[in-house]
């Protein structure tokens, strides 16, 4: 349908719209009008994606000056879902507008997902596909290939170079799959084609990393004009993504590898000195002029620029002491040597970047400014030396990443050296961690560069904390509830076992056999009362292992298995996938199953347990982070000192959002229904409870607080029976849950 918001005509591809979708559009439009950033929380299952897409593309149609829509997702799977929605939208726009509808949308991913070269695409990891491709497409390889037919190149790349770059592409929506098919058809490389297409597209869908991770982002984002609208979907963990993007871990293996890499580089330099000394000299000259000149390099040779670096560094020339290749190598050798020394330590050391730089200066004579250039200097060198198997130089790249970050930021980081893993003090496994403490650092360039940034997810509560963590000023921040035709959500807070003793995973209680037994009884009662799938989340792997073991010894697990099959998430991805597969099968055939999983794990983040795959989810305990972790301590301290965020507030916020994320896996659409049990006495406290997202809180009746096992069992039985009754999907009578075009017109007048 087509309707107006103020003077904007919105094209929405469905007959009906939920009231919350409409409101979402109103707020979003206000943010776009104000050219500002916004934070919007709306539960999953309410059609958030299509709402965003249809408003923003309609806005683009009206305002020709507006830039692209950059839609960031976390996974390839989500990306495909967005593109599917876009396709529906495009079909509708075309129907309504004919030729006027201009939509060119594409998904962009790494070579690993786009490459169609028969051998290269078969490589396992992202790095090896990149390297494999480079071997076939680097400018010097292609230069040799011109004279020597025995040198292999990639036919798809040549095809693209010949015709693709200048060809005009038809409008439409290109998923990764479409790009590959299209590439095969035309004989063009989909990866380079996609990168080329970006400049014509008005919607680009890609991974968070392309904007946030300096190791991946770069050129691609650089091409985007200021007027772009950036959307981060499912952004409840965006602060963690930001932090990870700027954190580096260095282990013994890394340093050993780096040493090997350096001797290889030395050999290469020697070789070039005798065969092609010119190349080295050219590089030297280029470096004198500054890194910004890099723009002149051929497309396949450019490395991804580092957007986290302040712009001036690109205009500066590289410091004299590392301009010459040999000098740079010996500089790195000294750095690696120094780091090796630091790893030898017997106790935990923790310091800020400033003191680290000081000791680096005094002990190894390495200065901050030089460090800053390491990342780019290394890539320039590898290029000059015509290195194509970049994946082998991973280790030295890691060291250079570290160097650049330490050299660039004097605040917001901490360097922690631990001689062994906290959990296994006997096994020496030293690690030097450069951990970013400030999520706003990675996202700052994004906020600064783009006009409007939309951060949205099903769980962003409490919504006022995100602007502080990310250090920005949203013009709009709102949380929407879900309009439902029936009460299909049943959250409960369970504080006591059937013996009335409190349950909790609090440190002093978690190994108490009484608590373990009470949790076990809870599970047992529930698997006996809930059909099909039940999902359990535990606070950590070690806690899960422990409690499942105890249940096994107590015989509880055996009893559970009389009702349902039991599947467990492990740290092994393949094993977990298999377990999930079998879990689903057991739910389909009526056998029923329980899935044990871990908060913050892969399953908690990405797997849906909708419909009969999850009628109940039990969150055992409050998933606090491991508070003894030094990195966390450092971050808490930093948050307190810099953003005045209270330690406990942050920890609670983080734990509750993870819990909300876990329980949210069971409801993925409005026609679905599911129960959620928060099993820990601490959830009953107002400070925890109030941090749950509004769409859960609004269903959390007073009668569902402070329950014991038998009370919750009673509620569960009754709820399940109620939900099994037939109901009117359009909303009984006139509890308005669907609006049609006429309704909206009425509202507008």
């Amino acid at each position: 349908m087509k309707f107006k918001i103020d003077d904007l005509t919105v094209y929405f591809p469905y007959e009906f719209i939920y009231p919350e979708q409409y409101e979402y559009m109103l707020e979003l439009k206000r943010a776009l009008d104000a050219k500002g950033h916004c934070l919007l929380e709306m539960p999953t299952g309410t059609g958030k994606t299509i709402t965003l897409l249809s408003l923003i593309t309609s806005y683009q149609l009206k305002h020709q000056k507006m830039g692209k829509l950059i839609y960031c997702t976390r996974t390839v799977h989500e990306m495909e879902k967005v593109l599917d929605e876009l396709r529906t939208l495009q079909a509708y726009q075309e129907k309504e507008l004919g030729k006027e509808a201009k939509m060119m949308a594409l998904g962009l991913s790494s070579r690993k997902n786009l490459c169609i070269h028969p051998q290269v695409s078969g490589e396992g990891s992202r790095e090896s596909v990149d390297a494999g491709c480079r071997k076939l497409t680097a400018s010097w390889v292609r230069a040799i290939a011109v004279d020597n037919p025995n040198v292999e190149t990639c036919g798809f790349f040549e095809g693209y170079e010949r015709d693709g770059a200048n060809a005009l592409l038809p409008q439409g929506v290109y998923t990764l799959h479409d790009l590959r098919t299209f590439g095969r058809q035309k004989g063009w490389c989909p990866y380079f084609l996609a990168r080329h297409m970006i400049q014509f597209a008005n919607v680009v869908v890609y991974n968070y990393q392309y904007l946030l991770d300096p190791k991946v982002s770069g050129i691609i984002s650089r091409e985007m004009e200021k007027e772009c609208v950036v959307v981060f979907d499912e952004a409840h963990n965006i602060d963690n993504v930001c932090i990870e993007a700027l954190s580096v871990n260095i282990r013994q293996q890394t340093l050993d590898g780096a040493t090997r890499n350096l001797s290889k580089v030395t050999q290469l330099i020697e070789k070039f000195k005798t065969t092609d000394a010119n190349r080295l000299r050219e590089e030297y000259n280029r470096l004198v002029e500054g890194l910004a000149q890099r723009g002149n390099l051929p497309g396949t040779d450019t490395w991804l620029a580092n957007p986290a670096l302040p712009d001036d560094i690109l205009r500066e020339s590289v410091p004299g002491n590392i301009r010459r290749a040999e000098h740079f190598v010996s500089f790195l050798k000294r750095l690696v040597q120094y780091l090796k020394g630091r790893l030898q330590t017997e106790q935990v050391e923790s310091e800020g970047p400033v003191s680290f730089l000081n000791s680096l200066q005094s002990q190894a004579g390495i200065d901050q400014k030089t460090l800053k250039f390491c990342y780019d200097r290394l890539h320039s060198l590898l290029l000059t030396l015509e290195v194509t198997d970049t994946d082998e130089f991973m280790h030295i790249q890691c060291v250079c990443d570290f160097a650049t970050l330490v050299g660039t930021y004097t605040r917001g980081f901490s360097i922690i050296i631990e001689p062994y893993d906290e959990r296994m003090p006997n096994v020496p496994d030293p690690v030097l961690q450069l951990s970013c403490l400030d999520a706003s650092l990675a996202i700052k360039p994004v906020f600064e560069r783009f006009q409007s940034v939309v951060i949205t997810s099903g769980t962003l509560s409490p919504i006022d904390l995100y602007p502080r963590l990310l250090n920005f000023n949203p013009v709009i921040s709102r949380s929407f509830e879900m309009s439902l035709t029936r009460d299909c959500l049943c959250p409960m807070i369970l504080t006591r076992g059937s013996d009335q003793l409190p349950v909790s995973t609090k440190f002093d209680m978690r190994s108490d056999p009484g608590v373990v037994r009470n949790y076990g009884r809870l599970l047992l009662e529930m698997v006996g009362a809930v059909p099909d799938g039940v999902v359990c989340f535990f606070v950590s792997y070690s806690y899960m292992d422990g409690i499942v073991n105890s249940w096994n010894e107590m015989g509880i697990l055996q009893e559970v298995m009389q009702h349902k099959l039991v599947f467990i998430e492990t740290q092994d991805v393949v094993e977990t996938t298999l377990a999930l597969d079998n879990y689903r099968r057991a739910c389909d055939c009526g056998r029923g199953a329980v899935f044990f999983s871990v908060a913050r794990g892969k399953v908690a983040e990405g797997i849906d347990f909708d419909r009969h795959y999850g009628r109940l989810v039990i969150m055992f305990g409050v998933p606090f982070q491991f508070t003894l972790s030094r990195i966390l301590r450092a971050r808490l301290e930093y948050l307190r000192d810099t953003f005045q965020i209270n330690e406990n507030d942050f920890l609670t916020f983080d734990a509750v959002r993870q819990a909300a994320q876990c329980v949210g896996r069971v409801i993925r659409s409005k026609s679905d229904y599911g129960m959620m049990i928060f099993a820990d006495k601490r959830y009953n406290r107002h400070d925890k409870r109030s941090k749950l997202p509004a769409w859960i809180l609004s269903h959390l009746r007073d009668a569902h607080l402070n329950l014991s096992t038998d009370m919750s069992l009673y509620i569960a039985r009754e709820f399940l029976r109620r939900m099994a009754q037939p109901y009117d999907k359009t909303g009984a009578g006139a509890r308005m849950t669907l609006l049609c075009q006429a309704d909206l017109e009425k509202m507008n007048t």
Partner: protein
Amino acid sequence: MLSVEDDGDVEAEEAGRDMEAYERAYADDRSWEDLQEDESGRLRVVDVAQQQRQHRKRVAAMAGAHIQRGIIRYLYLLVDLSRAAGEMDFRPSRMGVVANCVEAFVREFFDQNPLSHLGIITLHNGVAQCLTDLSGSPETHIRALRANLECAGDASIQNAIDLARGLLCQIPTYAHRETLLIFSALSTCDPGDILEAVRRCKDANIRCSVVGLAAEIYICKLLCEQTGGNYSVATSETHLKDLIMEHAPPPPVLAESAVASLVRMGFPQRGAEDAVALCVCHGEVKMGGGYICPCCKARVCELPTECHICGLMLVSSPHLARSYHHLFPVPHFEELEGTAMANGRESEFKLCYGCQQKLPFPGGEVSGVRLVCPRCRQHFCYDCDLYIHESLHNCPGCESISSTSSLPDLQN
């Protein structure tokens, strides 16, 4: 909007246009007026008329006006006697409640479907067992089930439907094959692929219905959807009985099997009161009563049944007559509401034509719905509507017309 006047209220609609959207949201959704606290302290919407309307809707959906119905049914009752049937959330236990419901159902079934057969299969310990073969005698089934009320082990839906399918495949094709599963458990432990078993039931034209006792189970829903059956879940003991009873009237015939066919039947005479004869159904010498098969003169104790000697279907004429109402149902009564109710003739229709109780009208003290028979235009209350359609099977209004002079009027 949960208040009474939902669609008929034109004036309110007009006024609504001038209101701000948010105001209207409140004006429309005056749901707080209908709130009441239930026993668990939760607020619940209570609206008599709405509830009555919903029930009527359900009934109407089941009794679509002119669908062909299968009068001759062969139904297997699959009774779950697994561990879960021993649970006590229904008093005295699920099993006890189920047994009572089954008893009532079996009687009602033969009452409404005098020409049909029924058998019982029980599910326990992972196996399915045929408790009684298909037959027309309610007492045998009831007795057999009462004697075997013990629960243990897991339930296997696959075993049960496979067994029922094997047995139902032998019956003549004019009959309707059905199973009704009364399921206490929440899972099924099957030896093989249940999805395959569902497919085979579908291919064999067996209509599988399920009444659940605890919660909606995906596989049961799938089974019903695939085979054209009906799936419902009981919320209480009485609801359970209602749901099971809903299966007593003959189901609509699936289009592909809706071929009319002729069936031979016998109408036996009642035996003399003082005659002594050997009955064929029990193999005992009985004194008086009983019925004599018109074909082979064997004596049976109960009707309807199939003669054990010659296999003729034996029915009594009232039985047959009772089956008719499924074919010629009383028309569905229409609801009068809002402005339509105030057409000036209220004074004439203050009372229900059926029971002479006061009828609801706008502003009146009686709440509920007011219904009118589309043929005789008499007004009825909700209770009479139920009674007329579910038990009486003819309309007192129409009957009194046809018995007086205005019969030609009706034919126009």
